[in-house]
């Protein structure tokens, strides 16, 4: 039994150990033996052990309502006061295990995958930074630390995507990821401001209390909810901010597995799960539609991609859409369940693709071939015999993601589909939501088996390369085996053994809480709806999964149906899907370029017009005025008036001189004229 204080200590260690590893490796990594990878691995393994012991404690406690909070004063200005801290409950503990487990696997897998990399110690340092920030999100008890770690996760993602920054595409992808995420973060921040203004606290549970007391409601609550959800849209790569995740595949593959499949992108889902109680019905509808649409939309792109990592990237986007959909329809525990199972099988798939790419790299390297794309599935085929462990584990993960019984994905996917179906049964006008869900399920099964068949089955497309393909070493296959093992249903249903029902420790320990928004359906009501739709959903989901797998089998294994012919038949649709619906092109054309043009125009106005003509105009006018004053002063005043008086006097004197004739007659005449004038004046 672990008491509250120990939970706090464990949480502190889990949070800060990876940060210590980061600090050590960023400053001293290069000088340490083995470039300090053991520091990071040691730290992450301790983190894993600590989280596992917390998980064990959770099982021994068996308390669905377990909750522990610890906080400290971060800022105190009198009235304005912020406390940061931890909020640990069963969801937190499960999530901590997911993060530290996948992170440990990535650390181990990278030992081989990143061997000889020029920035090996830096790479491990950044993994530590990521794990730190991710656990920070998981543990946060308030919106501020959520936001802080949210952005830190964005930075570690930026640094790791741009790890091979010599490649311009990797550098661009890193920037794109950060900026796209920041668009979502702005919404997140506005949501936080709305909440704080109304409730006066950042603490999540105090915010819940505030909402339940009606301190914020109506459209303002919807707006705040949608704002907070924007953060999730960015981080979980939902439509329309989905564009960064496929590009993020420029990063090393173990990173893709850790961040861009299992944990970081799931942070958005985690956020909506955490904050579920405060979403208003309208906000939930927005969430449901965004998630559902993304699930189908991304799946429809994954079908036509040939890059093995791109397929998995779009698949991730689609699966995250699923989870978001589940939150939207109120079945948020199913979303978290799928987050958990997805983390295992998707990480496994990414490690598998990493193993394949690694083998391709080596083979191509030996052939001195630098033109062939090692990630293009059209260059693969038949790897089954050469890489049996990779093949087997990836197939297990594929069965899981496709929703085949006996595997974890079946349970969680089924819960989500049942949720959306139940929702549509209750609100028939939202019939599109289950359509999105089941449609995406069929497509998922199709493209995942397409991936397996193209990579591992059939003829080797490039026999020369095929010759050099080898199974990856133990450090790489170990995570594969472990995670594919964790894709078996039993780990989620214990202590029960029914492969068709998700009933087990998960559903018992992680219980849905009621929404705090007055008037929202309670968890019980939502559960009823799900339960009601359960069997229909299960039958339907088995059907669509079978359909997808069968079609894929016919097309890519048996070749009964030609993919080319079908692609031609689909024409426009194929082209749209292949080109990802031209989102990047259109964003570039209608957003980035106009913005850059605008910024250049603003800078031109600022510097070349406003400053040069208006501000300097004052100078010019002053100069001109002073010139004018100078002219008036010298030419006008001095030369004409002052000197003029002189000149006039002189001239007058000259004139007057002529009067001084010296003749008495003349003087007499003047005197007479003068007298006459005076007389005339006086008479008038």
């Amino acid at each position, binding site marked *: 039994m672990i008491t509250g204080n120990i939970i706090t200590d464990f949480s502190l260690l889990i949070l800060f150990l990876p940060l210590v590893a980061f600090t050590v490796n960023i400053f001293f990594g290069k000088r340490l033996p083995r470039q300090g990878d053991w520091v990071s691995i040691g730290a992450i393994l301790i983190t894993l052990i600590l989280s596992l012991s917390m998980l064990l404690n959770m099982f021994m406690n068996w308390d669905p309502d377990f909750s522990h909070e610890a906080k400290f004063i971060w800022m105190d200005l*009198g009235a304005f006061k912020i406390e940061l801290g931890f909020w640990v409950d069963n969801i937190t503990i499960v999530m901590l295990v997911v993060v530290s487990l996948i992170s440990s696997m990535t650390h181990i897998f990278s030992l081989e995958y990143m061997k000889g990399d020029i920035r090996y110690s830096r790479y491990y340092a950044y993994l530590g930074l990521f794990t730190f920030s991710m656990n920070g999100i998981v543990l946060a008890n308030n919106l501020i630390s959520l936001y802080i770690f949210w952005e830190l996760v964005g930075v570690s993602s930026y640094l790791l995507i741009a790890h091979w920054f010599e490649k311009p595409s990797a550098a661009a992808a890193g920037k794109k990821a950060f900026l796209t995420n920041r668009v979502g973060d702005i919404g997140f921040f506005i949501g936080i401001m709305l909440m704080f203004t109304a409730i006066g606290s950042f603490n999540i549970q105090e915010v819940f209390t505030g909402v339940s007391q009606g301190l914020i409601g109506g459209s303002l609550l919807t707006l705040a909810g949608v704002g907070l959800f924007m953060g999730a849209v960015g981080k979980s790569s939902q439509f329309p901010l989905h564009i960064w995740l496929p590009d993020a595949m420029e990063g090393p593959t173990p990173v893709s597995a850790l961040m861009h499949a299992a944990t970081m992108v799931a942070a958005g889902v985690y956020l909506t799960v955490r904050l579920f109680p405060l979403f208003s019905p309208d906000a939930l509808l927005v969430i449901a539609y965004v998630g559902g649409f993304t699930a189908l939309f991304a799946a429809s792109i994954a079908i036509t991609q040939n890059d093995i990592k791109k397929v998995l990237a779009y698949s991730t986007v689609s699966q995250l859409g699923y989870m978001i959909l589940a939150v939207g329809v109120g079945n948020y525990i199913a979303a978290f369940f799928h987050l958990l199972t997805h983390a295992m099988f998707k990480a496994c798939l990414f490690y598998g693709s990493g193993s394949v790419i690694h083998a391709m790299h080596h083979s191509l390297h030996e052939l001195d071939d630098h033109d062939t794309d090692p990630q293009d599935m059209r260059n693969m085929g038949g790897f089954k015999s050469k890489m049996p462990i990779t093949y087997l584990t990836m197939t297990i993960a594929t069965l899981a993601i496709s929703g085949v019984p006996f595997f974890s994905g079946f349970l969680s996917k089924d819960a989500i589909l049942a949720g959306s179906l139940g929702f549509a049964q209750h609100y028939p006008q939202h019939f599109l939501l289950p359509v999105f869900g089941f449609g995406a399920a069929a497509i998922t099964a199709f493209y995942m088996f397409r991936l397996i068949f193209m990579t591992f089955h059939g003829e080797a497309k490039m026999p020369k390369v095929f010759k050099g393909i080898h199974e990856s070493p133990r450090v790489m296959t170990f995570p594969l085996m472990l995670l594919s093992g964790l894709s078996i249903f039993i780990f989620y249903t214990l202590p029960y053994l029914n492969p068709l029902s998700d009933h087990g420790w998960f559903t018992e320990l992680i219980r849905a809480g009621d929404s705090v928004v007055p008037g929202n359906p309670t968890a019980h009501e939502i559960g009823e709806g799900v339960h009601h739709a359960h069997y229909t959903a299960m039958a339907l989901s088995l059907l669509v999964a079978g359909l997808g797998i069968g079609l894929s089998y016919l097309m890519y294994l048996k070749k009964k149906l030609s993919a080319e012919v079908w692609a031609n038949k689909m024409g426009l649709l194929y082209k749209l899907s292949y080109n990802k619906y031209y989102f990047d092109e259109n964003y570039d054309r209608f957003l980035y370029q106009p913005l850059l043009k605008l*910024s*250049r125009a603003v800078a031109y106005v600022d510097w070349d017009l406003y400053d040069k003509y208006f501000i300097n105009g004052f100078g010019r006018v002053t100069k001109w005025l002073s010139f004018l004053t100078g002219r008036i002063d010298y030419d006008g005043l001095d030369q004409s008036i002052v000197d003029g008086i002189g000149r006039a006097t002189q001239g007058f004197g000259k004139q007057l001189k002529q009067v001084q004739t010296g003749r008495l007659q003349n003087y007499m005449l003047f005197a007479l004229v003068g007298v006459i004038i005076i007389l005339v004046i006086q008479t008038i």
Partner: protein
Amino acid sequence: MNHLLSWIIWLPVLGMVAIAFIPRDKTELIKQVSAATTGIQLALAIYLWRIFDASTGSFQFMETAEWIPSFNITYILGVDGLSLPMVILMALIGFISVFVSWNINTAVKGYFSLFLLLNTGVMGVFLSLDFFLFYIFWEVMLLPMYFLIGMWGGPQREYAAIKFFLYTLFGSVLMLIAILALYFTCGNTFDMLLLMDTAPTALNGVLWWGMSSIKVIWVLLFIGFAIKVPVFPFHTWLPLAHVEAPTAISVILAGVLLKLGVYGMLRINYTMLPDGVFWFAGALATLGLINVIWGAMCALAQKDLKKMVAYSSVNHMGYVLLGMAAVIAASEMNGDNLISAQAGLNGAVFQMFNHGTISAMLFILVGVIYDRAHHRDIEGFGGLASQMPIYTGLVAVAFFAGLGLPGFSGFVSEFMIFIGAFPVFRTIVIISTIGILLNAAYFLWAFQRMFFGPANEKYKDLPEINKRELFTVVPLALITLFLGIYPRPFLDMISATMNVLIEQVVSLGGLAGVM
């Protein structure tokens, strides 16, 4: 220590006198004397911080001496939670700037003399509580700046220097008129503490040319200070002055001098014309928004790295204005929202300090690459990350601090400002959050173009950042990081004073009906 504040102000002048006796060819000695002077000054500033009583918002370590009694001019000094962080900032940046200036080789004696005189001017402005004294220091600061830009600057230095000088002088003239107006309407005194008491009521209802005297004086002072901040549309001297000034002077200019404007507004406009605060708050927030967006847009378009950083100052100082405007939230008509007023005002002062450290870092780092490559064209580099990894790391830290990444102090202050201003200026704040996206865009784009991509052959021999340069950047980075993680040491220092300031504005403002 008695007369601690006087020591802090006049110490650089002593250093200047000492330098006057050093032969001009002993440049090393001149630099060492400057370093020692500013070093002692920094120690005194830290000592001041340690013995400063942060629990009260009133002025401390007051010094009063008769000066020109026939005009009621007195030598009054004092420090509170508003001026203390600025004094520490100046002492810190001043000390660091000596080392940034270490490779100045022409007319060293003149350079460091003026450099120290500038320091005295700035310190004097922050610490004087007599309007006349304040104005004298304000002008004292202007002159060395003119020569430092005009003689040690870049190719267009003369143009930049004269523009800076005339522009700021124009502002000072308006300020002088306002000071005299206050002097004659509020009982013939320059004593700022007295004016804080008398001005709000003395000006009440006084009309000049049919306009409220409060508005007239407010606008005069505001323009005078706005030029320094710089507030749009008075900002165009700044990019030019920055680009042409030598590195150390850019560092002081961005790091400290821009804060004088905001300091003046808070010290004078806010306390003496509280009614004007209510009248002007909307405009202040709007101007803040324009600064944020306009500065960011201009920064995005720049090809010269230093000019980009200069425009980022316009952008960052916009947040300060926004936070200052939030103070009116605490008034009765805005619902007595003391929480917002505190968040906004503390955030604004915190942002001033943070911009000081972050922009100083940015300018130093620009100087480092300029000294090596002899140009600052963002597109002319590429691949520097593999060439100069330590330098790259530091630039990354500075850029991320600049774009308001959590973990760095800039985030904390910007977030406080947004939270504070939001209840009163909802739309303005929402639009200005676009600024944080543009912020990230211009920094990351510049970073990508300079440091990422294949290494540029032309620069494969560029030496890594050296120890002296590291010594100038690393302390700033550590401060930024520390305050980003744990802002309390800073906020606890200022919050009592901010509460007094809020009280001054709210209790006396909004009553006289200038609205």
